[in-house]
């Protein structure tokens, strides 16, 4: 599939650039870890309450680190009008969208790989057993966040105060992902399995699929004046 080949090509370039400059990854990682400490100071986290609050706190941290990543998403293209270079090339604009979305998902995934265990350690949660399943749910939440986030990052690229505008425009639209991810994580933490949170999972997957297709179709209009 040509779309896939082009997406992987662009993704490889973005990852290589990130490896060279590693601006986004470092800032996102430290910001995530920093938020954990801030949570510790701002909430009275007795072990009993922490497992109840964990989903909300974790997801709040990932939401903000993700937004940080989104605002840096097109920085690599800023120098030498490289965005025009990509738009001029024979690639499908949907591939550009997919590559940028996957890039931010990879960044957020790496941050979560470190921050979640750190959360378990810092707040001494009882069992490590639900962690892999939790990570899968958070990954699905990432996909939803990055899909919509990439579209809106491109839309607000040329706006003034775009770092402020992006979260303002993005967060209200993220309500389904936020609610669904937190409900699923709560069910996993409390009962060890999804159970009655299954409809939330379907909603989350539905959200990801819908806006992935919408993104691929609409991205051509996003980057064109």
């Amino acid at each position: 599939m040509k779309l896939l080949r082009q997406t992987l090509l662009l993704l490889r370039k973005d990852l290589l650039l990130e490896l060279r400059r590693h601006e986004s990854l470092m800032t996102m990682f430290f910001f995530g870890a920093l938020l954990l400490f801030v949570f510790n100071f701002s909430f009275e986290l007795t072990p009993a309450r922490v497992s109840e609050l964990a989903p909300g706190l974790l997801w709040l941290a990932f939401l903000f680190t993700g937004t940080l990543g989104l605002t840096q998403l097109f920085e690599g293209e800023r120098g030498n009008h490289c965005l025009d270079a990509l738009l001029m090339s024979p690639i499908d604009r949907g591939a550009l969208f997919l590559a940028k979305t996957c890039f931010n998902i990879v960044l957020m995934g790496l941050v979560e790989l470190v921050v979640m265990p750190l959360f378990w350690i810092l707040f001494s949660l009882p069992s490590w057993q639900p962690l892999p399943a939790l990570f899968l749910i958070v990954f699905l939440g990432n996909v939803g966040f990055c899909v919509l986030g990439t579209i809106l990052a491109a839309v607000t690229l040329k706006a003034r105060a775009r770092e402020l505008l992006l979260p303002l425009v993005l967060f209200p639209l993220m309500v389904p992902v936020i609610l669904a991810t937190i409900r699923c994580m709560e069910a996993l933490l409390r009962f060890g399995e999804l159970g009655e949170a299954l409809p939330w999972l379907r909603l989350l997957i539905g959200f990801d699929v819908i806006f992935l297709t919408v993104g691929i179709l609409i991205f051509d209009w996003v980057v064109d004046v």
Partner: protein
Amino acid sequence: MPQVTGKKRKGILGAATLVFIIAGLYWGLIKAPPDAYQGDSQRIMYLHIPSILIAYLSFFLVFVGSCLYLWKREKRDDNLAHAAAEIGVLFTALTIIEGSIWGRPTWGVWWTWDARLTLTAILLLIFIGYLMLRALVEDESRAASSAAILGIIGFLDIPLIHMSVYWWRTLHQPPSILRPDKVPWENIHPELLTALAINFVAFVLLYFYMLSHRLRLGEMHEEIKARRMR
């Protein structure tokens, strides 16, 4: 839309709106008897339900305007989206105010995370984001296409937001009979229904009346920009 008939048609629309508003006020406040359950505070419903529908209607118009603009790139469609959003924000905000005032005597609190109030609040946030985006992008045609994308994405997201908020609500708040969407419509007193119907028509007419003026204003702004350009 030729100027002359436009003015005449707006005149008729304006007159009809006024008639229905007065009828709505009279019917809602005086003629209709107080509701069996909630007493007189139910009269706020005559405003609340029409404005919610207007809020959704304006979001739909923003969606239509955005799609047409992306497809044909005509200023007219962009103008429609912008006008619908501006008036939509007003009615959405009023819906929230009405909802919380209605909630005060019934639940004893100014704000409850009731599904419908939360939903309207999210709608308001999306509208505000839409208008902020338009304001913060300087380049004229880029602002129009960016707003169009957000208009489409926002509209597609509404059903998902709707589902998630309602599921979230059924989880926490025990269903109370007094919740607006639980009102038993069948044995409602006919007078109340007529009051609601009249007010509904009044609001729709008012909405399109204001919209037509706002569209005209949009056209004039375009005209001014065109004149300055030449």
